[in-house]
């Protein structure tokens, strides 16, 4: 077996550390024969995926589910009055819990933050061109909820171009989705220092602090939100609503 096959496979299975990955990438750039082997590896994987997809399509298209999935069957006639009451009580409890959850959701500042991110940043907008650009691929990965790939791509762009505010913002949003609030705050912090026509850095940082909710976060978020409002920064329209929840 060629050593390169294992080496290439390790790269694409994320088994190399960052130093080794860099060496691999540099070798692709300088060693044409090696780059050719990488191209063959990728082409082979794609051809295999294509074959697999064709097999699955055939299988899914033609076969019907013949076996019934076994699930516990509850006979209605065997239910006692007691079990009926038990069901009603359980339903009432569930209703109570759900209403409490809804109340909690709408009232707390913490949930305002997570709702805001869910409503506004569940998906990122694509442009219809440059499908192979790292930013676009990062956005695709983000929208596919493949946050590990997304963060790698956005961080890559941000390293190559530290003035790319979108890459920094998207990296922050991806860290937020991964619940890595400390890294998200770090990114929004960098964003807030950038000279932009409309900068959402402070507002996003405040929301992330509310979501993290560590000791002192809520107070720090309040100060930031007041700054967002007084300086009419991006997000200032939402500040009053959040401050009411304090």
């Amino acid at each position, binding site marked *: *077996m*060629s050593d390169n*096959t*294992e080496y290439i*496979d390790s*790269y*694409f299975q*994320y088994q190399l550390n960052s130093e080794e990955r860099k060496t691999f*990438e540099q070798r*692709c*750039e300088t060693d044409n024969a090696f*780059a*050719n*082997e*990488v*191209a*063959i*590896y*990728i*082409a*082979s*994987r*794609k*051809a*295999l*995926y*294509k*074959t*697999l*997809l064709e097999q*699955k*399509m055939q299988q*899914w*298209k033609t*076969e019907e*589910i013949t*076996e019934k*999935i076994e699930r516990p069957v509850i006979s209605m006639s065997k239910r006692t009055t007691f079990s009926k009451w038990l069901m009603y009580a359980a339903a009432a409890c569930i209703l109570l819990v759900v209403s409490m959850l809804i109340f909690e959701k709408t009232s707390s500042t913490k949930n305002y933050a997570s709702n805001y991110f869910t409503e506004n940043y*569940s*998906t990122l907008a*694509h442009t*219809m061109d440059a*499908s*192979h*650009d*790292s930013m676009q*691929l990062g956005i*695709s*990965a983000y*929208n*596919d*909820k*493949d946050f*590990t*790939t997304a963060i*790698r*791509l956005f961080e*890559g762009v941000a390293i*190559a171009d530290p003035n790319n505010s979108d890459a920094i913002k998207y990296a922050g949003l991806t860290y937020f*989705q991964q619940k890595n609030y400390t890294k998200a705050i770090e990114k929004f912090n960098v964003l807030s220092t950038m000279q932009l026509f409309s900068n959402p850095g402070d507002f996003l940082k405040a929301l992330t602090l509310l979501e993290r909710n560590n000791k002192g976060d809520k107070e720090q978020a309040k100060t930031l939100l007041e700054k967002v409002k007084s300086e009419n920064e991006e997000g200032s329209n939402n500040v009053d609503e959040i401050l009411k929840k304090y």
Partner: protein
Amino acid sequence: MVQDSEILNGLKAGNGFRTRYEKVFYQQYYYFVDEGCRKYNLNYDDSFSAYSDALLSAIINIVNERFDGRSSLKTYLYQVFSNKCIDLLRKNTTNKQQVHKTMPVADTMNQLPDFTRNIVEKLMTSELKENVQRHLETLGAKCKEILLLFEDGWSDKDIAEQLSYNSAAVAKTTRLRCLDKLRGKITGTK
């Protein structure tokens, strides 16, 4: 209507269960295909292809624990499906000449940074792709089976169990030998 938790557990369970729950998953959201025809103006075959591709990507992500369960399966699958439909639309409208960019799945390639990717992409000519496809068909059944299992999201450990290899390491060596064999056929060295 089968619950998300049941589908997720079924897909992550053993081989027989997985096949069965793949079908359950497929049937449950099959109506997306109509949605693809209506919303994205795709023909049935394209919409079905986008649906199958989305379903397979979703299954592979689920079995590899890359689906974190923060949305329902329906929402998740629909997002992946929408992206696949957009990819197809883009391919049909703007990239008609670029026949070599046929597969919407480009995850492997995406791991490379931009500059390196450009170099490798240039080497992936349509001739190479046709060559790979042709030689893949001549590869032995055993090799094809192990490579397809890996592509389907099974780990080397799972493959070792399914194909009765002594260990994950043996399965990995066999898999890499098969890849090497395919490469040899393509380059004409084996």
